Every structure is written in structure tokens, then in C-alpha cells.
């Protein structure tokens, strides 16, 4: 049993999930107190002991499906098969099952009708059945093909023709429903039905994907399929190539990071300032002077608020990163008052006020796009001129408590870098950090002048993923 569990844990780790030894032991303990023929309970056990972040749920689900649920094996509790690895029948149980034996002929018309009902109702049972039969009928594994879930998924969806079923259902929903059963008029009714159908279609697609993965496991083994399905976790996605969905997921992860970042940057000036009166210590102290509180004692002060000035490149060459940057800066600015931000291309403009007024991140991004006056001459990044303007306008407000964080790829379009301005900014500030969204291997190639700036920073970090951002934040500790 521990063998299977440790194989499972290995695969989770290979997918990037941090699973510790104690957690693996917890998982084993948990499995020992639940019925192993209850797949849902097994799943809940493993998930609650091994996965400690909502962001890792999806990756966990995929690996779990591969290892623990084979509904294709009638009457055989799936987890037990895997846990009793000693059993001599295992091979036998695995191989035949659904692939050869009890295959009933599936009527495509019946299947389509079932799919229609499944999509209309969203009923889980029906969706699962539909997925199983669709894969059985259309998704048969071609042995010459490399392992690839996406290929069979597309093939099955096309053959089942989900799109046409959906448009039929939508049309029916208009004509077929009694007015008494509707919510609101035509528009509202249509919108509700469409939204529901879309969600049911997503669920069907997901069921089909799981079914195909299972089938492939039977054919090729869990390891091979798992390897082919590994996908980067949110924290490992490259900002530059993130899709819209990825960005939504990243945005959720940014808020906690922003908070940690800001508190790490806070100075702890414990020895210089006093906290509130510590009555307990004062009383204890007073006992040596006959109960007279001669010497007041103070608590350690709370760390002061950080002062951060963020200067971010928002030019085309880093536009994907810039969006992310703005998210990060917005998240920081929302929680802390001593944060100022400026953006630049070849001109510089402070956007702190925009962030404070904006009701939402979308609004902030739109406002920055519309209002920030960042183009001085050409609209291509010019770090030299941006730094000069920044130093003129904001240099005087930097103090020995200010952390200056520069976000950009240091691609200056062959303009002069004027790194001595950065040098003088660093003398005024507490610390200067540079976060570069380009892969380190590109640094210094072409018009990249990061090497010219690096000596004038307290740290230069590659920052293309949330993980790297986390690492940066951790290093500030």
C-alpha cells in the first residue's frame, strides 16, 4: 500500500506539488481509517493530507484520476486493486476489462440522445455515462499514436458533435418551455439557459478528458500518461506567455505575495523606537524596588510601514509583463499607504493617484493606458531618458527608507543607458532591486543593458513566474 502511495506522491512531486514526508505519512494514516472501496473518500483523504493550496487542486485531480479511479473495471473497488499490489491477479484484472470483454454495441443515435439529456440537465451521472460511451465509441486508442489526451479529446468531441447538440438545445429552450416555467422574458431566459449549457458542456468535456486518460492508462500505464499530461502549475507559468485564464489564476496568487513583499520590506527599527508600555515586565521589575514601578518597561515596537517606490516599464516589449506588473503594484498599493508607483516608456508618469482612485484593477489598467503620460518622444523604451526624468521629478522624494523596485527588461533600443543616474538614485534610496521578466540567458544580448545597471542595484532577479517572484520575496527576509 505504501508503495502505491509513494508512487502517487512521486507523481505529484513531478507535477510540481510540494509534498513532504510527514504529509505522506498522514495520508497513509488517513487511508487506514476509511473504507477503501469508496473512491470519493479516498480522494478526499489524499487531497486533504497532500494538497495544501487551492491552486494545486487541478493538478492533483489529474494525477488522482490516473492512479485511483478505474470505473471501467466492473465490480472491483479501484483503490483496493492498487493498494493490494501483492495480489497475483492484478495483471489479469488490469488487462482485459473494458478493452475487449464486455463491450456492448453502442448505438450512435442513442448516445446522441443521452448526450442531449446530459447537457440539458447537467446531471453528473448522465454526463459520466455519456463520456464513457462516447469515448468507447469514438475514442478508441490507436496503438501507433503517441500518448496524447488532447488528440483523442478533439476526436471524440467532433464525432459526438457537441456543438450541434448545444445549438439545438438552445433553440428548443426558446420554443419548448412553457411561459410559466421561464424566468423573465426572452433575453433573461436565453441568457440563463445559455450559461447553463456552457457550464454543462465544460463538465462533459472534462469528463471525456478524464475517461480518455483512464483508457490510456490501461493501454500505456499511469506513468507514461502522467508524464504526457504534466502541465506547469500557476506559479511556474511564464508571465509573457500567459493566457487570459492563466492571468486570472495568477491574479489570485499575487495578493498574498504583495502583502508578504511589503511586510518584508518594512524596516524593523526595534532598538530606536519604543513600543507600548509592557505592564507585565514593569510589574516584575518593580518587585526589585519594593513594588514601586520605578522603571517602566516597553514592548518591542511593531515594524514600521514600508516605503516602496515602484518604477515599471510598460512598453510593448514587456506588455504581458507590464499587465502583470500593474497587478502586482496595484495589490501592493491597495494594502499599504506608503507606496508610490510610476510607469515609463521613454517618459515617466506617476500613477499612484490612479491606483488609489480606481475601483478595480481593470479600471486601473485602463486608466493607466489612457491617462499616464509616458511617451516623451518616440514611444519606445528609453531607460536613459526615463531615469533622467524620474530623477528630476521624484529623486528628491526618495529617502533612506525607500525601497526602489524597477520592473523591466532593460532593453533600451540602443539609447544611452545613463547608468550613473541609477547610481545616484541608489545613493538616495535605502535599496534598489531590479526584476527582469526576460530569461537570464537573453540578458546582455542585443539591446539589453541589464549588465550596465546591475552594479548599481542591491539585487537583480529574473522574474518570469510567480515562483520566481516568491523567491525574490523570500530572499528579502
Amino acid at each position, binding site marked *: 500500500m505504501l508503495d502505491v502511495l509513494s508512487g502517487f506522491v512521486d507523481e505529484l512531486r513531478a507535477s510540481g506539488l510540494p509534498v513532504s514526508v510527514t504529509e505522506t505519512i498522514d495520508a497513509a494514516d488517513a487511508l487506514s481509517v476509511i473504507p477503501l472501496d469508496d473512491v470519493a473518500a479516498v480522494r478526499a483523504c489524499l487531497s486533504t493530507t497532500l494538497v495544501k493550496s487551492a491552486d494545486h487542486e487541478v493538478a492533483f485531480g489529474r494525477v488522482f484520476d490516473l492512479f485511483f479511479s478505474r470505473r471501467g473495471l466492473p465490480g472491483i473497488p479501484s483503490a483496493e486493486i492498487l493498494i493490494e499490489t501483492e495480489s497475483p491477479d492484478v495483471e489479469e484484472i488490469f488487462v482485459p476489462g473494458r478493452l475487449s470483454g464486455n463491450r456492448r454495441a453502442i448505438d450512435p443515435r442513442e448516445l446522441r440522445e443521452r448526450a442531449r439529456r446530459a447537457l440539458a440537465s447537467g446531471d453528473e451521472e448522465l454526463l459520466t455515462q455519456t463520456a464513457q460511451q462516447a469515448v468507447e465509441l469514438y475514442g478508441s486508442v490507436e496503438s501507433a499514436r503517441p500518448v496524447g489526451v488532447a488528440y483523442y479529446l478533439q476526436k471524440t468531441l467532433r464525432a459526438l458533435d457537441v456543438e450541434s447538440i448545444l445549438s439545438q438545445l438552445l433553440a428548443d429552450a426558446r420554443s419548448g418551455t412553457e411561459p410559466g416555467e421561464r424566468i423573465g422574458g426572452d433575453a433573461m431566459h436565453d*441568457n*440563463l439557459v445559455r450559461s447553463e449549457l456552457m457550464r454543462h458542456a465544460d463538465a462533459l468535456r472534462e469528463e471525456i478528458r478524464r475517461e480518455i486518460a483512464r483508457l490510456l492508462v490501461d493501454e500505456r500505464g499511469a506513468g507514461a500518461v502522467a508524464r504526457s499530461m504534466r502541465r506547469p502549475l500557476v506559479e511556474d507559468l511564464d508571465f509573457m506567455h500567459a493566457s487570459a485564464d492563466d492571468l486570472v489564476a495568477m491574479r489570485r496568487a499575487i495578493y498574498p505575495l504583495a502583502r508578504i513583499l511589503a511586510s518584508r520590506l518594512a524596516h524593523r527599527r526595534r532598538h530606536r523606537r519604543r513600543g507600548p508600555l509592557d505592564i507585565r515586565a514593569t510589574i516584575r521589575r518593580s518587585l526589585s524596588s519594593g513594588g514601586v514601578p520605578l522603571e517602566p518597561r516597553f514592548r518591542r515596537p511593531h515594524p514600521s510601514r514600508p516605503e516602496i517606490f515602484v518604477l515599471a516599464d510598460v512598453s510593448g516589449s514587456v506588455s504581458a509583463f507590464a499587465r502583470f506588473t500593474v497587478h502586482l503594484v496595484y495589490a501592493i498599493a491597495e494594502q499599504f499607504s506608503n507606496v508610490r508607483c510610476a510607469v515609463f516608456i521613454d517618459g515617466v508618469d506617476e500613477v499612484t493617484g490612479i491606483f488609489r482612485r480606481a475601483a478595480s484593477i481593470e479600471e486601473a489598467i485602463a486608466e493607466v493606458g489612457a491617462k499616464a503620460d509616458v511617451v516623451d518622444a518616440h514611444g519606445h523604451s528609453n531607460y536613459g531618458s526615463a531615469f533622467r526624468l524620474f530623477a528630476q521629478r521624484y529623486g528628491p522624494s526618495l529617502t533612506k527608507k525607500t525601497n526602489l523596485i524597477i520592473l523591466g527588461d532593460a532593453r533600451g533600443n540602443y539609447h544611452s543607458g545613463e547608468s550613473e543616474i541609477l547610481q545616484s538614485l541608489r545613493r538616495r534610496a535605502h535599496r534598489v532591486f531590479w526584476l527582469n521578466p526576460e530569461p537570464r540567458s537573453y540578458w546582455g544580448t542585443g539591446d539589453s543593458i541589464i549588465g550596465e545597471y546591475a552594479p548599481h542595484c542591491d539585487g537583480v532577479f529574473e522574474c518570469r513566474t510567480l515562483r520566481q517572484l516568491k523567491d525574490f520575496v523570500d530572499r528579502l527576509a
Partner: protein
Amino acid sequence: MTPAYRFSDIKSVRDALAAVGYLCDDAIATVLYLAERLQKPILVEGPAGTGKTELAKSLALALSSRLIRLQCYEGLDESKVLYEWNYRKQLLRIQVERNEEDAGREAHHDEWRRIEGDIFSEEFLLTRPVLEAIRADDPVVLLIDEIDRVEIETEALLLEVLSEYQVSIAELGTVRARQIPPVVLTSNGTRELSEALKRRCLYLYLDYPSQEREREIVISKVPEISERLADEVVRVIGLLRSLDLQKHPSISETLDWARTLIVLGIEHLDEAATSSTMNILLKYREDIDRAQRELLGHASKPRA
């Protein structure tokens, strides 16, 4: 000694919670069941208003235990988590000694030592929620609510207590737990909690419930509602949660909305009723605009 478990199996957890009005699915029930068997704290995360706090309250009710709640906030420290000395009482005590001294008795050094022992004794100790929970004689459930709000130092302190189940008080020595109570920690995810804390806990992500479960929740919490209106309510909520909004409506907002509709005497949802009460569900102007468009607007063409 085999401890007497209060839940015999996963289903009994579900039933016990349903009996006190908390409707949960099997995944939630499994985690609660495991928490008792493995004696581990549960860390519950999830969007606002998905029933994290309510889960702990309901667990206490279901177990007929007293709920001890530590509400976290920034700046919360040891003296609010574990214990504090009752310094008013201590000062009074010292005052009494000094008055006697003034009255002519010369207090010796030894005597002040005795007084020190005196005033740092149980009598002068104020126990705070976490210490109270592990020292209680009656059954309790400890809720540490919104732990993401405390500083990392306080988190570490809590972690220590939850691992050792003992507290050392400088003046008194080590205080051991009389019981290991069920512990529920909640977090709204405003910051990442330490790995150590997460390792120590069972993890439960409470997402929005399925449409069926939410319908049941509505019907159980707003009994005046008709099945049909409850159904309409959760369908509209389902659409809103599928949009990319800044803040999705939570279960509490679903319930508020259902209650409002009842008060307004609305029996069926339609455009006017939905539109005029949308501000109960959504808090941001842009979200409301967006929802109006997606829910009430005319779609250009059926997309399928």
C-alpha cells in the same frame, strides 16, 4: 485506551451537521471525520461567505461542545492568544503589601520573593482562548478565525501550541493540555500561511456549493421560500458566479437576496425584480453593470 469517537463514519458526520442546519457534501464530511480520527486541526480556506466560520460553529453544535473562538486581527499577540497576567489585581496586591510596610513592618527581601511567587500564580492568570481550549474540562471546539490576519510571529506561536498541546508560562512552568479539542482554522487567503502550519493541518478548500446543495441551503435557511423561487435564485447565482467578476456572490449573499425577495413579496424572478435587487448580490459598480449586461442584455446571437 481507545478514545471514544463521536463520529462512527463519514455519513454520520454529514447527518450530524445536517441536523444542526449545516448542509455539507461528502468531501467536507470526510475531512471532519479524519480530523477526529487523526486528531489534527483543519485549515479551511475559500472565498468569503462560503461557510468557513459556520462550519466550526456547526461542528460545535453537532458535538454539543462549547465553541471557543479566537478572532484574529493584525497585531494580535501572545497576551490575547494564550494568557495574560491580571496586572490590576497584581498591583492591588502589591499595594496591600506596601501599606502593611508603611504601617511599620519592614519587608525583607525574602518577603518580596514570596510576593512575587504569589502574584504570578493561577489566581492572577487570565486565560485566553487557545489556552482555555486545551485546559477546558468540558468538550470544546476551538475556532481560530481568519488566521491570515495575524503576523507570522503569532502564527508560529499558534503552530507551536497546536503541535505540542502545551504552553509554557515563564512564571508557572509548563501547562499541559487536558484535551486535544477539534480545531478549525480559517483563512481568507490574504496572505500565504507558513508551510509548517499547512503541513500540520488537514486542508479543506471550501468553494461555492453545487447548485443542488445551495438550493437545499436556501430552503433550509429561508423556509418561507417556495421551491420554485429557490430554484430560480440559485440559477441566477450560478450564472453570476460563472462571470469574471471582482467579487462573486457568496452563500450569505444568496441568503440575503432570498430573504429580500420574500420581504418584497416577489414570487417569481423577472428582469425588474432581479435588476432592482442586484445590489444585494454584487458590491462593485462594474460588477453590477457587467451582470446586467450578461443576464438581462440581449445576446447578439445564440452562441453554441
